[in-house]
């Protein structure tokens, strides 16, 4: 079975995250096993609960949430990158982290990379 892992390094207001979303959704619809999406660098901002994008613009965060809910797609954020950007990843007080996202470390990226037959970065 071919497996796919995706790395997103661009913020939720970037056009590249839309490309990533379309790519991942097409893969899921084609029944490719997408083992996870890893958000690194500005990509972690997808998990920031305080981000609000004008309602007439593309709601990337909502679409990632939808893929997570409909396909149980694992969404990981890098904790170091997240904390650097003000996303508090404290287990007791993680109201700043969108619950669709799992707080992970770069070790998760190692695991995804070793398991995936293909790794694609956006």
């Amino acid at each position, binding site marked *: 079975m071919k497996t796919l892992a995706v*790395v997103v*390094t661009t913020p939720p207001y970037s056009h590249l995250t839309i490309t990533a979303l379309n790519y991942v959704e097409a893969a899921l619809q084609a029944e490719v096993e997408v083992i996870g999406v890893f958000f*690194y*660098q500005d990509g972690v901002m997808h998990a920031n609960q305080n981000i609000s994008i004008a309602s007439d613009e593309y709601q990337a965060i909502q679409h990632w949430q939808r893929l997570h809910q409909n396909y149980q797609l694992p969404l990981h954020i890098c904790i*170091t*990158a997240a904390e650097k950007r003000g996303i508090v990843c404290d287990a007791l007080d993680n109201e700043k982290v969108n619950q669709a996202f799992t707080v992970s*470390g*770069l*070790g998760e*990226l*190692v695991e995804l*990379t*070793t398991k*995936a037959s*293909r*790794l694609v*970065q956006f």
Partner: protein
Amino acid sequence: MTMIDTQVCSNVEDGNGLAIINSKAPFSSAYGKDALDIALIFGSFEQKVSLFFQGDGVYQLIDNQDGSLLSIKDYLKTFAAFEFYDIEDIYVCHQSLANRELDESFHIEGVNVLQSIEFSEALNQHAHILRF
């Protein structure tokens, strides 16, 4: 499938770990540091990782630089630890050096200077590629 396609696929199949392409200058952004963090984690997990330097990324290898003059933590010093992480495959694009009139005085040992075609062939040996 053409012969080249077949060749690419076979390389991907017996893929040789992760390649990280460094394409940005060291001190104008955090890209170099972010790439370094990934390289060191792969090294810690004993996963094979190779580093490629291309475009402005070649500046990350040039010696006698001091990030502290810009109040930046000089992550380039950590390159000296690659040996401890078993990161041995380090490649730099000759054309990128030539375009910037840089000579091959690097601040770490064991850097392989490759012509563009060899650079792409070395890259093609890897199962996965990340670019920073």
